[in-house]
């Protein structure tokens, strides 16, 4: 699904964040990316989203060279992703409205795109029907992230990229949305890459966890976590040991 080949990226005059970095993500896998502040995890996500271009090397999605945002990739950011002047319903329909705006041109919307404005099933699925007419500042943080999820799923992505999506939420809402994310990924057969700074979140969501360290990142450091997301995983001993393994790996790298 995703392949980075010899990926090199740096902001001008600084140590490159990625240097000849090669990494693969298979279709349907769920990955968590974790690391300290400044390790480049958000940069990696932006590279995968096509919002930044590598200095050298390539990002391939589905075998295609990524040169700009790809219509079948969904991106969810921590905050500020919703339009304050649009209602929850309008925000959820935003991706569809953008596609209707351009039509199926293959660049901004898939070539096989059929114009539709049908977002209500998603609002219902995410429990947002009652607040569909409200504005983002009138609803809770959890509902805002649900709106962002509805907006992304409405464009029928096959790849979901998330940048610390739940870090400003309270613990219970966070766990609730983590479970929902896994459920939706399984249901829609999505490939997931989620960036987080929380070890518990990485251990809960990523069947594979990519650990980044301070730049430059050359070799991907990966911890396998095959049981992630299984029922009751948060309470299991395996989960605890994965958390421990992640912690010690982060300390050494």
């Amino acid at each position, binding site marked *: 699904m995703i392949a980075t080949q010899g990926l090199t990226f740096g902001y001008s005059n600084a140590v490159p964040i990625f240097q000849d970095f090669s990494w693969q993500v298979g279709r349907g896998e769920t990955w968590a990316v974790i690391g300290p502040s400044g390790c480049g995890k958000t940069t990696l996500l932006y590279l995968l*989203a096509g919002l930044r271009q590598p200095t050298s090397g390539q990002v391939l999605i589905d075998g295609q060279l990524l040169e700009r945002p790809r219509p079948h990739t*969904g991106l969810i*950011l921590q905050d500020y992703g919703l339009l304050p*002047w649009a209602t929850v319903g309008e925000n959820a329909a935003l991706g569809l409205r*953008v596609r209707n*705006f351009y039509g199926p041109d293959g660049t901004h919307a898939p070539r096989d795109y059929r114009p539709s404005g049908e977002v209500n099933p998603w609002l219902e699925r995410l429990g947002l029907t009652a607040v569909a007419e409200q*504005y983002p500042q009138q609803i809770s943080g959890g509902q805002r992230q649900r709106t962002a999820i509805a*907006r992304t799923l409405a464009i029928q992505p096959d790849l979901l990229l998330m940048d610390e999506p739940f870090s400003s939420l309270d613990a219970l809402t966070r766990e609730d949305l983590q479970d929902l994310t896994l459920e939706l990924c399984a249901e829609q057969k999505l490939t997931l890459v989620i960036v987080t700074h929380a070890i518990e979140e990485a251990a809960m969501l990523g069947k594979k966890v990519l650990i980044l360290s301070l730049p430059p990142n050359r070799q991907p450091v990966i911890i396998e976590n095959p049981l992630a997301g299984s029922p009751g995983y948060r309470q299991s001993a395996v989960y605890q040991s994965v958390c421990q393994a992640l912690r010690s790996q982060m300390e050494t790298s």
Partner: protein
Amino acid sequence: MKKRDVLLTTLGLLILWQLSAMLLNRPILPTPLVVAKVFVQELGHGLVLHFLASLWRVVASMLLSVALAAPAGLVIGQSPRLNRLFSPLIYVLYPIPKVVFVPIILLILGIGDLPKIVLIFLILFFQIVVLVRDQAANIPPQLIHSLRSLGAGRRALFRFVYFPASLPAILTALRQSVGTAVAVLYIAELFATQRGLGYYIYYKGSTLLDYPAMYAGVVAMSLLGLGLYFSVDWLERRLCPWLHAS
């Protein structure tokens, strides 16, 4: 603002006016009742035409400045490079009191409505450019990234982000500058015209010494300012409902 509070305040001001007029007891300050009577009489004797002349000039300049300043502010604000290029120019021109250009504008544009409209336009233009530019420049990058990831290119960003984001800035700029616009209109209408409330007030007061009629003109000009202010307020509530959602 509650309607009741506005009405009560107006009533209070009228009472204050009445009391001052009774205390001063001189022709230069007639009571509100006298002015009201003359106001109604004058409506039939040309005051309406003067009012309409002024209204046209100020509304035309408002529309012209929105039409030119809003796109300019948007284009400058969304591009850091253009912003660096134009900001020094705006920074220097913005604080210059445009009203001192009256004689120059009159010399160049002559008599008629155009110089008056241009003068008010100059003032409104900079107010709107500055507010819209800042609004466009301060849109969180996360919002732009989210939209781009949904497939939005430059055109869709203008349609779905920059344009709606700048609407409140345009309306705020208009509301803040309505008072100035009407004040400048008064100045502009003192010169080279025989139409408009500025001319009317000056002519009745200084030439004919007809104080009640002069006050009728002042009332008309105040109503013009209030009416414009309330209209912009109303527009904002219609066009920007999210600002008023609790």
